[in-house]
């Protein structure tokens, strides 16, 4: 039993961290009143940007000449830029052009998934043009700078730090409170002299970058730097569900993410007979459903979403 827990818990933590990044990013975004359903796509793009950057660096200088700083910075920067651009696209459409947030988010997810899978697939085909049946690329050298294998590495642990910082920011700083005001009632915030558009942009962009790091974390640590049609979209959707589960609290999301991470890998760990495994895989989704229903049954004021969530703000329309 103890040996089981000793191997299970670190892996549950590891699997939970991409979820934590995703949900922290989405909480920050939703606090500004933007419902970003594009998180799965953003995580995908963040991941493939990081992987492409690492891949190009690794193959251009060779394993022997790689410097540790660059091996970490290149994927990290590429990931941040990729997810920043995705966030910018979302912001421009929903805040500046006041497009419907649900549709924009959904198409952003389809867009991001398409871009990432196409780029990833092309990278695979370019490197294995002759070999058939090979369906993955590995950035084995870069991964060494991220984690040692089965225990969470520094990128995973930073997720906890970012979640805690976000929680403190939202609760105790002036900017955090103004951000929450924008999400609750942009017209009132506007009248109080808060620049609604700027807050929405900054919160969504930072949120996207945090979520993008979750994608990178998934590939670098959970998948050990191997890219073969990863199921990042699944992680992204669960992250959005976690936002509701934790009632918009990043600090609670730390524990919730680890719990869901555990549920995600339960089927691999218990090693059930073939077939039954598919039922274990069902558990996180059923739990999410039950949680969704349960949360909607309890109607306490502090558990409600930001009041203007999902609505575009236009100053002259009151």
């Amino acid at each position, binding site marked *: 039993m103890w040996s089981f827990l000793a191997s299970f818990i670190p892996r549950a933590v590891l699997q939970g961290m991409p979820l934590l990044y995703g949900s922290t990013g989405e909480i920050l975004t939703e606090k500004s009143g933007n419902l970003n*359903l594009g998180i799965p796509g953003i995580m995908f793009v963040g991941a493939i940007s990081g992987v492409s950057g690492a891949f190009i660096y690794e193959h251009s200088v060779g394993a022997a000449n790689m410097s540790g700083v660059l091996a970490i910075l290149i994927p990290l920067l590429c990931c941040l830029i990729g997810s920043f651009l995705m966030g910018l*696209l979302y912001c421009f*459409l929903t805040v500046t*052009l*006041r*497009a*419907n947030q*649900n*549709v*924009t988010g*959904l*198409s*952003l997810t*389809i*867009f991001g*998934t*398409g*871009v990432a*899978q*196409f780029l990833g*697939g*092309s990278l695979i*085909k*370019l490197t294995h*043009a002759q070999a058939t049946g090979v369906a993955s690329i590995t950035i084995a050298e870069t991964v060494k700078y991220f984690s040692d294998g089965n225990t969470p590495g520094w990128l995973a642990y930073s997720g906890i730090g970012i979640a805690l910082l976000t929680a403190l920011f939202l609760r105790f700083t002036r900017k955090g409170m103004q951000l929450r005001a924008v999400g609750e009632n942009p017209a009132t915030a506007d009248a109080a002299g808060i620049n609604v558009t700027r807050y929405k942009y900054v919160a969504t962009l930072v949120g996207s970058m945090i979520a993008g790091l979750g994608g990178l974390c998934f590939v670098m640590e959970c998948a050990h730097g191997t890219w073969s049609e990863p199921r990042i979209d*699944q992680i992204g*959707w669960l992250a*959005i*569900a976690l936002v*509701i589960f934790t009632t918009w609290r990043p600090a609670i999301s730390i524990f919730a993410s680890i719990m869901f991470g555990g549920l995600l890998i339960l089927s691999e760990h218990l090693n059930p*007979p*073939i*077939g*039954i*495994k*598919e*039922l274990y*895989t*069902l558990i996180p*989704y*059923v739990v*999410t*459903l039950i949680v*969704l*229903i349960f949360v*909607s*049954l309890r109607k306490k004021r502090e558990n409600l979403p930001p009041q203007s969530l999902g609505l575009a703000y*236009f100053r*002259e*329309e009151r």
Partner: protein
Amino acid sequence: MKKIGNLLPFEIHIAKRSGIPTWKAWMIRGAAILIALLLCAVITIIITKMNPVTVLESMFNGTFSVARKRWITLYRVAILLGISLAVTPAFKMRFWNIGAEGQVLIGAFAAAACMFYAGRMPFFNDPTVSMTVKNLVLFPCMLIAAIGAGALWGFLPAFFKSRWNTNETLFTLMMNYIALQIVKFMIAFRGFPERYLWSANGTSVGNINSGFQSFGIGTFPKFGDKPGTQYLIPIAAVGLLTVVLFLYLRFSKHGYEISVVGESERTASYAGIKVNRVIVRTMILSGALCGLIGFLIVGAEGTISHDVVDGRGYTAVMVSWMSQFNPIGMVFSSLLLVFMQFGAKEVAMPDGVSLDKNFANMLMSIILFFIIGCEFFINYKLHYSRHPKKEE
């Protein structure tokens, strides 16, 4: 911090339009689509480094060159169009249902289950009963099972939404994964008695009942023994569905209620529309239609797997929005999408990389971004004016 607006030589002021002539709105949309298509062309040329005419030619060859490919292409258009039609009533109501993937899959699953267990029954293995009679018994069963399963998958999120305002986007999404895992489980599970195992090897089903005497029941007939004609029934069914749904949304009382609820739930309830009932009813309809498409897929392909829907439940949402919920527009959008998705596979570049479905999805969402973005220019008017002199 300096405002970005100050960098421009003029000031932009946004005002809401009170109304815009329909032709002007369509001009704006047309221009947006044109720019989007040009952008897509530029991206394709940059990535493939090929002559655009060659690219189009190979895409066309992959989808329309011979009779067999034309049938398959038409069938794929029909399925995508069918799912898009099915999601439309719910979306028009602003019910964010992204569960079409699961609703179609569970419908297909139910139809396949009927086909499978019928194949083990003595009646269907009786050689004295003709194939036509067997099919006449089996098809209605499959149809009812598929529609029922799809409707159930649509009903659950709507019920919780209308009762307790449970988030429908995530609810329907989780239902997708649940349907997916159920199908995977049935295919992989080894615990049934030998003759009730869904697949011999636990990975793929193959043609349902292929090892049994009742092989072939439950699949659509080929007309005149021509290959590809088994797709005729799904194509005709979706064609009929297009007309019916167009009439339903445009002229029926239900259709009117759906659009009022979509515009504003408050207006609807003030007008005496029972909003919750409309939501549940419409989602049951939406799910049932998805289930119907699942039946058509299983009937035409004679098999089931976990990726039988292949992401089309999500693409259908794009098709529906791109066409502004207009069934006639959806015919063209799904044709374009299928052409891009399956044509792209035929475009092989010199360096061994080929375009694929993901690439087509990418281009399609670019077009959609332009379409949803251009609504801004339909709803709002921009005024330009010179900067007033700085007072300092």
